[in-house]
């Protein structure tokens, strides 16, 4: 899972090795710890930045990184499961303002939906919904007719809806 660096991680790593380390930690967080891809990337980034700042003097840097990633993933799962408890018993809790955890969950869900769209649909929907292009402008940008662009937008939206429904049903 992690890159073969003979058990060592060095701040003087080559760019290629560094990328492979980020890849390895992200994959570890996703495949072994079961966090969604965007969250896994964020965790790898947080942990590596912390390691770089801290000048930690430990025997095995990779072991340290793995442990820190595993801990962050566990925290992520724990926050999500707490959010379910919160939502279930909200009426019994004192009002402490807006609970951020359902919001976090909803943002992560949105990221997962967008991340898993097919590339073509993703591009069309990004132009239409994020950048505000009309169907005609999307068509012009992609070299297709306005009506075909409109069809692609509808198809993409249907795909996003299907993904959203699937993700909502998945165990958190």
């Amino acid at each position: 899972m992690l890159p073969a660096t003979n058990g060592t991680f060095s701040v003087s790593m080559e760019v290629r090795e560094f990328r492979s380390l980020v890849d390895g930690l992200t994959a570890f967080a996703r495949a072994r710890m079961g966090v969604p891809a965007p969250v896994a990337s964020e965790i790898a980034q947080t942990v590596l930045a912390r390691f770089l700042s801290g000048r930690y003097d430990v025997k095995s840097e990779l072991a340290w990184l793995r442990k820190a990633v595993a801990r962050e993933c566990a925290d992520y799962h724990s926050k999500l499961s707490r959010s379910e408890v919160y939502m279930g018993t909200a009426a019994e809790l004192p009002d402490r303002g807006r609970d951020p955890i359902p919001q976090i969950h909803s943002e992560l869900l949105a990221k997962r939906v967008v991340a898993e769209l097919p590339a073509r649909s993703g591009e069309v929907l990004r132009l239409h919904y994020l950048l505000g292009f009309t169907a005609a402008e999307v068509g012009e940008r992609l070299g297709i007719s306005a009506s075909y662009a409109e069809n692609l937008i509808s198809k993409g939206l249907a795909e996003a809806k299907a993904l959203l429904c699937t993700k909502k049903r998945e165990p958190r």
Partner: protein
Amino acid sequence: MTHLSEVELLRAGRDQPLSEASRSHLGRCEECREGVAEVRECERILGDPKSWDAAAPESTATDAIADALIAYRNRLEKEDADARRLLETVGDGGAEMLAILIREAPEAETAGLVRELIARSETERERTPRKALAWIEVARNVAARLGQQGLPAGAAEHLRGLAEKEYANALRVLGRYSEAFEALDRAEAWLSVGGAAEYDLAIAAFGRGILCAAVGRSEEALGFARSSAEVLAEYGDTRRAAHSRMLEALLRARRGELPRARQILEELEGPLRQDEDWATLAALSANRGNLALDERDVPGAIRFFEEAEELNRKTGQIVHLARADWQLGVVLIHAGRLDDGIARLVRARMRFQIQGMPGEVAALSLELVDAFLASKRISEARELCSSLPDDCRKLGMGQNALLALAYLRECGEAGRLSVHSTAHVREYLGRAERNPELAFIPLPG
């Protein structure tokens, strides 16, 4: 009842025209209304820039993260090097000179400077705690002024937490315990920002354990020692985990649980030898020596202190070597081997003198004077007292402490030197370490 088709749901969700029949069905069918709500939720998601943050192809996202981290690493390397050059420029001017320099050149206030100052304070903490405190005070100020620009999320707070943690250590060594507790509280708060904090918080918990032990809150100290050892071991920091366990052993020994304390220390030896961590093994041997003394096993204590001395020599830890010599000298004197003990103390004194540690030179000299008096070597005791103020003045000892040593010299010259006069000066020096402004008052008569 026929539900709306997927195309009709999409049209409804996008506020496009629907047939009358479809509109009418939608008014009656909750399931279809849920479908429309899902379409609208999708539109909201797709229109929100946050949803697209990490939607780039995964390899591109990873590359972007790696590039950002490499840029951060390169930035830190450059800032570290600049900070080292700046500290070389400061030279003997110390922290005050540095504070003046960075006031004139605020661009020097970087994350790298904070890191270098923390490292410098840590290195000097044992030898010259006041200087260590001065360095770390500058580090705290710089860290507090660090902006977020160009730093990963949480990095500025992390550095602030590390500076506060080292500040707590320096305060502890100087005996300013309540301030040290406050600094640790702040350290933990800053370190908790930004994630991946468990390891730093475990180190802080170890520091809190030492502090609690120093102020006699042994039960709390024991809890911190145990919890920090567990986490540090999980992160592969065997050195710090071993120190946490040594703290646990010390606390158990204090509670009279000597067999349990011995067991803990014995368990540590194998893994440390396997890691060839000679510096930590030296600390372990010193701790085993102290435990042997608690167990009234003087030959065992001598053996462990000799081992500590040997390991400290091997690792070039001069200050620890001097301390091991000191401990061994005291044990030998109490075991009746006066000449051997005195020889050790003389050697330790010389080492502290070379290291420029006036407090230790003075304290050891008092120990030596007592040993000389006990062995009726009065002229040597007098001679040592005579040179002591000058020796310590050259090492930079404060004026009030020098007055106390001058009093001892006068006692020697007047033939009034006794264990009472050395005890009086020793007690004063202990208090003056925490409060250098404290005036020395000689014994009556």
